[in-house]
């Protein structure tokens, strides 16, 4: 079992058993780990945690809608070269000066093994993942302009996150280890909160969790509150000095959890029909679509 590092999570990041397994499998097999999951379940933080736990440098490649696979390899700055040749009378014979390495190349050329996070791969063009197949498989690429081949000195640990905005191509998926971060169960969630706010009042936490999972159980919310929103909310409750027994009844600071107008109306209506809710009820008929 060469290279079988045992990732256990870090003191500020709790991993479930199956996620820990997936990470270790990906590291041991040298394959990219593809992480999917609801927004706010800590996909991006995972890479940071892995880097921290294994004591490796983290390189982040943020993907935008305009990112191309080539950007991760290298960019040949032809404009600069043309400019230099015409106006600067510099020596432009050395093409290497105009080759700028991208994030992927950076992870290849690093002297130590690194963790490479390709964040939100689904933001890019549909062909993007396919364009990287070879590079991620063989961990090298060729620069025709200079005749150089850049190969990885140490195979980087590649973590890829996706919000499922686009379907990823099958050949790409075949080469990945896949993990879906399910939404944490209440018990797990309690642990996660304790990691962030160790001194939190026990009854406040219980009540907040109860309200939170009740909110999530409501059908038809456009944006269900997620872990990061819960963390904000819990902090708001603690700072605001809200009495625990008022949390489930009054749902204070609801704005930290819900981000959509329609969701507010749905929740207020449900809370009202639950019977315990004293807050004002807004007329929501005008928000209906038909």
């Amino acid at each position, binding site marked *: 079992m060469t290279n079988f590092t045992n990732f256990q999570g870090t003191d500020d990041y709790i991993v479930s*058993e199956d996620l820990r397994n997936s990470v270790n499998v990906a590291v041991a097999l040298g394959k990219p780990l593809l992480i999917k999951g609801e927004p706010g379940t800590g996909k991006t933080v995972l890479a940071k945690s892995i880097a921290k736990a294994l004591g490796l440098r983290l390189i982040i490649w943020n993907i935008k809608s305009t990112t191309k696979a080539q950007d991760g390899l290298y960019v040949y700055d032809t404009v600069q070269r043309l400019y230099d040749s015409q106006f600067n009378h510099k020596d432009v014979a050395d093409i290497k000066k105009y080759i700028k390495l991208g994030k992927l190349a950076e992870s290849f050329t690093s002297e130590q093994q690194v963790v490479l996070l390709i964040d939100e791969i689904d933001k890019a063009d549909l062909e993007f993942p396919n364009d990287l197949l070879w590079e991620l498989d063989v961990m090298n690429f060729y620069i025709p302009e200079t005749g150089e081949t850049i190969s990885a000195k140490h195979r980087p640990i590649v973590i890829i996150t996706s919000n499922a905005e686009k379907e990823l191509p099958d050949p790409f998926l075949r080469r990945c280890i896949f993990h879906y971060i399910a939404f944490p169960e209440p018990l797990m969630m309690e642990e996660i909160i304790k990691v962030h706010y160790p001194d939190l009042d026990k009854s406040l936490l219980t009540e907040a969790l109860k309200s939170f999972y009740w909110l999530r159980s409501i059908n038809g919310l456009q944006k269900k509150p997620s872990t990061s929103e819960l963390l904000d909310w819990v902090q708001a409750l603690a700072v605001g000095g809200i009495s625990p027994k008022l949390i489930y009844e009054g749902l204070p600071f609801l704005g930290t959890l819900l981000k959509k107008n329609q969701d507010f109306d749905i929740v207020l209506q449900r809370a009202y029909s639950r019977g315990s809710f004293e807050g004002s009820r807004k007329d929501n008929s005008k928000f209906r679509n038909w």
Partner: protein
Amino acid sequence: MFINFLYLLKREGIPVSTTEWMTLMEALRKGMASSSLTTFYYLARSILIKSESNFDKYDLAFQKYFEGIETSDQICDQVFEWLKNYLPPLDIDIDFAAQLKYQLENLDLDQLKKMFQERLREQDSEHHGGSRWIGTGGTSPFGHSGYHPGGIRVGGQSLHRSAVKVAGERKYQEFRGDETLGVRQFEVALRKLRQFTTRLEGPKDVLDLDATISETCNKAGRLELVWTRSSKNAIKVILLMDSGGSMAPYYRLCNQLFTAVNKSSHFKALEIYYFHNCVYDHVYLTPVCQQRNAIKTEDLLRTRTSDYKLIFVGDACMAPSELTQVDGIIDWGMSNSEPGLVWLERLARHFHHNVWLNPIPEGHWPMTHGFYTIGLIKRVYPMFELTVDSLDQAIKKLMVRN
């Protein structure tokens, strides 16, 4: 190894490739399942399954294949009673452990099982701290909180749940692709209406700056213009929704689709009209189909080019006369000089790219009260049920001419 498991997965409809299977075999060779079924469950899942919508199918297949391997839970409750009053966990010094290990080295699982069954038969009371009976503490192979290099744990805490049990929970049922899902899933599906267009359609009318510069440089400074297609989405959509009474049960589902379509800002044009059961001379701008909000279907056909994609949403259930007869229209005080079916055919002829989405699950189509009209309309429009999987197919259909 487990080759039948592969075929079982394939039978469940999970796309598993040989490459992935070989990767799993490599992982097993490296000892990564560490002889535990639970670890194997997660290991195989992370390597073979690439979408959470297949997790449930995987769970089912896993359950089927590994059923029976699970250690039985039906050890008589009596045993657990014995274990309730337990000794504190046993501390073992290394020498003693080695000695014990030597003694028991040759005990294999079958023997152990046999012994366990014998004890179950013979034992009639609590035992703690000994080396033979089922109890807590001590060095008997049976019980918990004790020490035995290869015993059977009965009760107590373990960090690992049985994998078959994990699979049996079927936690990922709601992620199945063939279930109807929320707004977001619809949105993702609708986004595919773009993916087929960017590269196929449109003239090459935008200057590709990067390629131009690069080509110019290759030509040593002589200007070389490179043109490319604009990456704008050229898709135009007309959505026609049934707002009739029989659609009421599907209100939520249609509402989700409606929200998703509305949120999809990537269409070049999006027009939404309503009708009541079937389209005749008029379509309506609001769900309450009133004359003052009507526009002539004829005008729609005349003013909208045929490259609009036409999406019908409706249950297609009505009285056959509403489709086939003059004046078959359901609303009082209205008349139609041509049968509804003629209008539907006319629309389909004009808008070549068309689909009909039906909120009624496909399996129920032959059995609903509207089976006859569903059949008639299906002959004109390719009909899909309103699930995410089906919507995907419908959208693929929309991209090719019928």
